[in-house]
């Protein structure tokens, strides 16, 4: 079976086997008899913390440790029934496991060490052992779990497609298919252009020879006519080439941008949480722009430069092979000097980039935090810190300039030497001292051609850098395009025109990373029109549960039913239009208040918008703004206060009239007066809908019909406010008492 992408990543980057070695796999029946291999991992450190290869194998009955020494393989087999627990110690750069037997007063059954690289794989084994999860018998699970766990950080950091450079270039060029005509016209224009640029030097030479030979004027005017024609055609082809290629490049970049953005909309939240916002934005903007440059000019420029060099070389050799050799022989050396110079510049540029990064980190740290800087009177210190980084930058960039300002004059000097050599060898032939003689016209032609050598050499010298930049951008873009939506859509989806709002969770489990269970076997039912409060300490899984209910993620196990239908079978478009969310940090788009309230309902009547705003207690403050509902609010609504932004988001939810309403800490970031107003607005919003509300201030959930208390991903308590308070040592009572105590302290 060919290795999967993940296995290839492991082989390329970690220099450890991408799967359990065959010889161990083949010996498994001898090692532990007839049992399935469920999971395996590698413990890569020995007790002295030296690198080693020890395999940890989990079977139906046994946990096995197989060490691959240079000379022998040692084995330790422990029955799973003899293991009581595994003590894991997280060190600064690694982990230790002590496998504890049934009698904790005895030494551990085995102690192993491993680096952080192996942690996910081993965590899978520990979870499987401790949770006694049902053991799947999928024969590929062990390989998949191992390769997924080991390759995930690499995949997250790098483009998920590690194709070779050629494949990426071909894929990129496939975007030119719809523009074949432009490509042909532009390409041919470029070829003619190159050929035409060889004409003027030759004609000039003939003209000079003609003058010297006292050729009739009519003949000379003919040469001038050729020159004029060549220049005219040259201009025409320049225009055709530039315009065709520039338009085509722009259209290709436009196509890629559209495709990338449309694909982004289909991707699940998991993708967006894995990648930084800035990185995604740059893929849609600067990366596509870089591709435009490459497609429009890069490909053709390089091809033409090679063509030009070949053309020049051929013409020169045909004119006079002796002088031709003088000009063409140094070409490989000059190209090599470009490569060396490129490497040196890359090395020193990396240093400059490093220094630049220090400088920008000072800026990005202090500008957003300028209030803190001023409050702690650290202006002078920050100025000195910046000054230091700035000086360092200056020093490094001086080195950069020193390198290139030495290289280019040296190269120009080389060309001068070559030109002088041409003179040196040509002069005796021009004066007739040596043979074969050479005409002045041919000599001038030579000099003009010599002047044309520099540009194509420069372009070819920069080819590697340009290709690398384009491939890197293409890679980053293709990563998005090749990312499959984590939430697959079924073909036959059920559309429910009007939800009742019944929500059922059946043995729902969920893990973000496939290892740590965030939701552990939760079952519950919400009746239509019921208001339920989700309560629990931070990290209990409240927000995750909500994200599962709106299908931002699918459960790892179990299912969620909406009005009796599996959520995975519902049409997401029709479902989500009937679900409203009011979040702790309401997100407002750059645009008018009207557009923000009517987001997703562009045809909403002004009267409905005003009505929704009134219900959300937003109408009053909106009318006080200079352009009322048409007032444009800045990026993310920063021109409004937190409470105002929240009330606009509530108005948005009211206008959408959702059947299921989710309130995630909707009032936690506002003052008491604003909270009262928002609470009042929410009270109007919740009537007649199924409502799931998360709130840290437990008093705000008094209106809830039922409270569900989560802790460590489990549903631990359920009941009304009063019922839960009666549970002695209960989680809810503990949280409530703590808040009361805090409140008392404030009152005092």
């Amino acid at each position, binding site marked *: 079976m060919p290795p999967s992408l993940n296995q290839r990543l492991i082989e390329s*980057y*970690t*220099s450890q086997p991408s799967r359990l070695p065959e010889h161990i796999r083949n010996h498994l029946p001898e090692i532990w008899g007839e049992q399935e291999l469920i999971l395996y991992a590698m413990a890569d*450190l020995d007790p002295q*913390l*030296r*690198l080693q290869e020890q395999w940890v194998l989990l079977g139906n009955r046994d946990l096995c440790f197989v060490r691959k020494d240079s000379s022998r393989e040692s084995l330790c087999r422990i029955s799973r029934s003899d293991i009581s627990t595994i*003590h894991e*110690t*997280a*060190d*600064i*750069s*690694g982990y*230790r496991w*002590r496998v*504890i037997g049934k009698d*904790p*007063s*005895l*030494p*551990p059954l085995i*102690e192993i060490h491993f*680096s*952080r*690289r192996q*942690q996910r794989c081993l965590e899978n084994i520990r979870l499987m052992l401790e949770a006694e999860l049902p053991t799947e018998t999928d024969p590929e699970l062990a390989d998949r779990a191992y390769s997924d766990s080991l390759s995930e*950080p*690499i995949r*997250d*950091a*790098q*483009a998920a497609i*590690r194709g070779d450079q050629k494949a990426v270039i071909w894929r990129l060029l496939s975007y030119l298919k719809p523009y074949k005509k432009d490509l042909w016209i532009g390409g041919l224009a470029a070829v003619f252009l190159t050929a035409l640029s060889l004409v003027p030097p030759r004609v000039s030479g003939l003209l000079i020879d003609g003058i010297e030979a006292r050729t009739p004027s009519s003949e000379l005017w003919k040469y001038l006519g050729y020159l004029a024609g060549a220049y005219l055609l040259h201009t025409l082809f320049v225009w055709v080439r530039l315009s065709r290629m520039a338009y085509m490049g722009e259209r290709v970049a436009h196509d890629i941008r559209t495709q990338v953005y449309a694909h982004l909309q289909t991707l699940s939240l998991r993708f967006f949480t894995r990648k930084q916002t800035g990185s995604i934005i740059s893929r849609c903007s600067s990366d596509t722009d870089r591709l435009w440059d490459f497609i429009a000019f890069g490909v053709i420029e390089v091809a033409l430069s090679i063509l030009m060099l070949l053309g020049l070389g051929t013409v020169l050799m045909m004119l006079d092979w002796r002088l031709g050799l003088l000009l063409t022989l140094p070409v490989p050396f000059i190209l090599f000097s470009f490569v060396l110079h490129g490497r040196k510049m890359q*090395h*020193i540029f*990396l*240093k400059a980039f*490093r*220094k630049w*990064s*220090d400088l920008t980190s000072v800026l990005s740290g202090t500008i957003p935090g300028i209030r803190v800087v001023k409050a702690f009177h650290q202006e002078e210190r920050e100025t000195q810190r910046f000054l230091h980084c700035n000086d*360092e930058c200056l020093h490094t960039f001086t080195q950069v300039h020193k390198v290139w300002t030495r290289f280019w004059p040296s190269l120009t000097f080389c060309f001068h030497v070559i030109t002088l050599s041409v003179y040196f060898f040509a002069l005796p032939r021009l004066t007739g001292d040596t043979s074969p003689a050479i005409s002045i016209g041919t000599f001038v032609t030579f000099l003009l051609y010599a002047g044309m050598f520099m540009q194509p050499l420069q372009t070819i010298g920069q080819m590697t850098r340009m290709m690398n930049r384009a*491939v*890197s951008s293409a*890679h*980053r873009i293709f990563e998005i395009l090749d990312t499959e939506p984590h939430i697959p859509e079924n073909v036959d989806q059920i559309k429910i025109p009007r939800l009742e709002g019944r929500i059922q969770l059946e043995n729902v489990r969920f893990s973000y990373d496939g290892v740590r269970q965030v939701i552990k076997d939760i079952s519950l039912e919400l009746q239509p029109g019921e208001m339920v409060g989700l309560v629990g300490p931070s990290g209990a899984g409240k927000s995750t549960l909500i994200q599962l209910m709106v299908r931002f993620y699918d459960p790892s196990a179990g299912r969620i039913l909406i009005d009796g239908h599996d959520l995975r079978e519902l049409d997401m478009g029709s479902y989500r239009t009937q679900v409203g969310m009011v979040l702790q940090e309401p997100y407002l788009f750059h645009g008018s208040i009207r557009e923000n309230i009517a987001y997703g309902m562009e045809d909403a009547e002004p009267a409905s918008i005003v009505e929704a705003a009134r219900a959300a207690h937003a109408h009053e403050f909106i009318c006080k703004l200079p352009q009322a509902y048409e007032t444009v609010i800045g990026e993310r609504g920063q021109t409004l206060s937190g409470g105002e932004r929240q009330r606009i988001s509530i108005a948005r939810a009211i206008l959408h009239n959702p059947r299921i309403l989710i309130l995630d800490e909707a009032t936690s970031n506002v003052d008491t007066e604003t909270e009262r107003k928002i609470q009042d607005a929410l009270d109007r919003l919740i009537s007649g809908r199924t409502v799931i509300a998360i709130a840290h201030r437990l008093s705000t959930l008094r209106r809830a019909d039922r409270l569900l208390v989560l802790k460590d991903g489990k549903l631990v308590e359920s009941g009304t406010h009063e019922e839960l308070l009666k549970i002695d040592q209960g989680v809810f009572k503990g949280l409530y008492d703590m808040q009361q105590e805090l409140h008392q302290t404030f009152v005092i």
Partner: protein
Amino acid sequence: MSKPTLLHLPNGQLALQTDDGPEAVTLSPCFPWTAPGKFLSLRNAEGKELCFLESPDELDEASRCLLNKELSQSTATFQIESIQSVKKEIELRCWEVTTSRGTRSFQTELDEWPRALPDGSFLIEDLFGDLYVISALEKLDPLSAKLFWPLIG
């Protein structure tokens, strides 16, 4: 006040002697780079701090011995002895190095730069969170120094 006492449980875990008997603890060095071996928080399985040591000198000889042994384990990193190559790939910087534990290849993100430590050495964190310490530039062999030079501030 009596000195805190450390001991090993039969299962090999480090433990602190409390009024209720020995309780397993893990060591959390507060300043692993600027004050190594000092300001140590000893926490139980629930993550609650049972003892805070400003210095191991607060312990008796036997406990200090146990503590130092545990410290050497818990703060161990890959010590880079030489660098064979540092290559830039898409979004990644790929390192081939020889460490005190053997040869190793690892990757860092392109904007993840080596961090200078107070003793002049540098700390590198790879994609998995493994830590690598490399000596100051002048202590490295010429090739390693050449490869490492552009990456430090």
